[in-house]
């Protein structure tokens, strides 16, 4: 049986007090972060932890002895090839859709060529707070905040936090993600976000037009956060509502390709020099005419 010493009995209120202090500290930490400016203080710590987690790339001794490493390398090679082919397939779907638009609207400007980085998913967080992935490519690999993550299935998410060698991707399955999408056949547009049942939910739907059940949903490119034409999912009718079966779930989320967003700068942010010069001449000429008139 336990021998409750005199000091043990005396220290019991101390332990209860200690418990209370720990709980108060936890509660204080949670509450203090409701201010976004204070929440930002914790970002460097999160980024440093992500970097550390992403750097573990070693191969164990057992796989080396059993030859599993060689087999794994071959599998990875073949998987990479499949990923490349899947990308081409996705590109073909996207191009067909785009070609149709080109034929309809003449003189349409083409999309710039895609550059990007392929990264391995080293950690994932599917907790109740957020659904994110940690990829082992960061700023030194050319990744920038806002890069879009895709896998062989389709759109995975968007880089929301960037470290030197890691980046955190907010998955499209998260409630806080917002992706402008359009039906490939119907052309109906909506905003997609992560629903509660593992499917995507849609908002800002038009009142009259409807999606076609099972049709592919592509990113519409509106807002410039996501490039146009990336597979986001498939439209699924659930009673009166429309939901999305995520395309990313048809591919394995072992690797993602991080590609830049294609934000189109506003004319006032990126003025053409010749036009600026022309407008200056025009305004001077206008002023001269006004002076002559007076």
């Amino acid at each position: 049986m336990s021998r409750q010493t005199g000091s043990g009995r005396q220290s019991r209120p101390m332990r209860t007090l200690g418990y209370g202090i720990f709980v108060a500290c936890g509660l204080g930490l949670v509450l203090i972060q409701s201010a976004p400016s204070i929440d930002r203080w914790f970002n460097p710590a999160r980024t440093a932890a992500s970097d550390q987690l992403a750097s573990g790339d070693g191969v164990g001794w057992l796989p080396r002895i059993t030859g599993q490493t060689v087999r794994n390398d071959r599998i990875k090679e073949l998987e990479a090839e499949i990923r490349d082919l899947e990308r081409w397939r996705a590109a073909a779907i996207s191009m067909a859709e785009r070609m149709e638009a080109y034929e309809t609207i003449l003189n349409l400007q083409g999309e710039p060529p895609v550059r990007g980085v392929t990264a391995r998913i080293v950690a994932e967080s599917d907790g109740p707070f957020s659904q994110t992935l940690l990829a082992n490519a960061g700023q030194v690999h050319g990744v920038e905040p806002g890069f879009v993550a895709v896998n062989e299935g389709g759109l995975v998410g968007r880089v929301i936090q960037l470290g030197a060698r890691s980046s955190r991707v907010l998955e499209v399955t998260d409630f806080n993600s917002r992706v402008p999408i359009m039906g490939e056949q119907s052309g109906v547009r909506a905003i997609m976000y992560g629903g509660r049942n593992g499917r995507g939910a849609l908002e800002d739907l038009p009142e009259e037009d409807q999606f076609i059940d099972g049709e592919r949903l592509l990113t519409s490119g509106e807002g410039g956060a996501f490039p146009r034409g990336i597979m986001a999912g498939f439209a699924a009718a659930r009673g009166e509502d429309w939901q999305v079966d995520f395309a990313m779930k048809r591919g394995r989320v072992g690797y993602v390709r991080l590609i830049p967003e294609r934000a189109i700068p506003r004319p006032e942010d990126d003025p053409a020099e010749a036009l600026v010069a022309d407008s200056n001449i025009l305004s001077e000429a206008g002023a001269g005419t006004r002076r002559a008139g007076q």
Partner: protein
Amino acid sequence: MAGSSRSVMRKSAWGRTDPNTRLLAGAALIALVGLSGLTPKSIFGLELIWPYAALWGAAGWASAGLSMRPMLLLCLFGLAQDMSFVSPIGSFMLVNLATYGAAALVSETLDVEADPIKAVLVAAFAMGVGFGLMWIMASAKADHAVSLFPILLTFVVTLVLFVPVAPLFRLGRRPGERGYR
């Protein structure tokens, strides 16, 4: 007396270890399971539900009553969980401490160490408190009621896996306290 000395002699190596060693062993298991859970985990395309191993420690260690060292460890594990789950810092710390506090409170009235069924029931209650708090905080952060089903699944997996590993989290007495339980 002779009987008791024989029973002491028959104790296994684990039975002879002191609470500090048991605490460290439990912490090592939590760290191992927690770190493994950070990697993508699926078998034949099926997503695995990973347990919140820190709650094993919270429910198990509490049977010896409130103690500073387990509380400190739970706070540290909570902070690590906050980093990996991208939750507000302190959230999992509170979840772990709530589970620990609830388990300690109930363990004081029931003789948990002697009855494994009671131990599991107490763990279920304490983990229920922890997961309930987690759901409330996640819903408050998201500004809507988050889905309960994944949390329930994780709760069940954590509890079911606690049954075989529970002896590893039995301290016998508080770390630093003298005598045997």
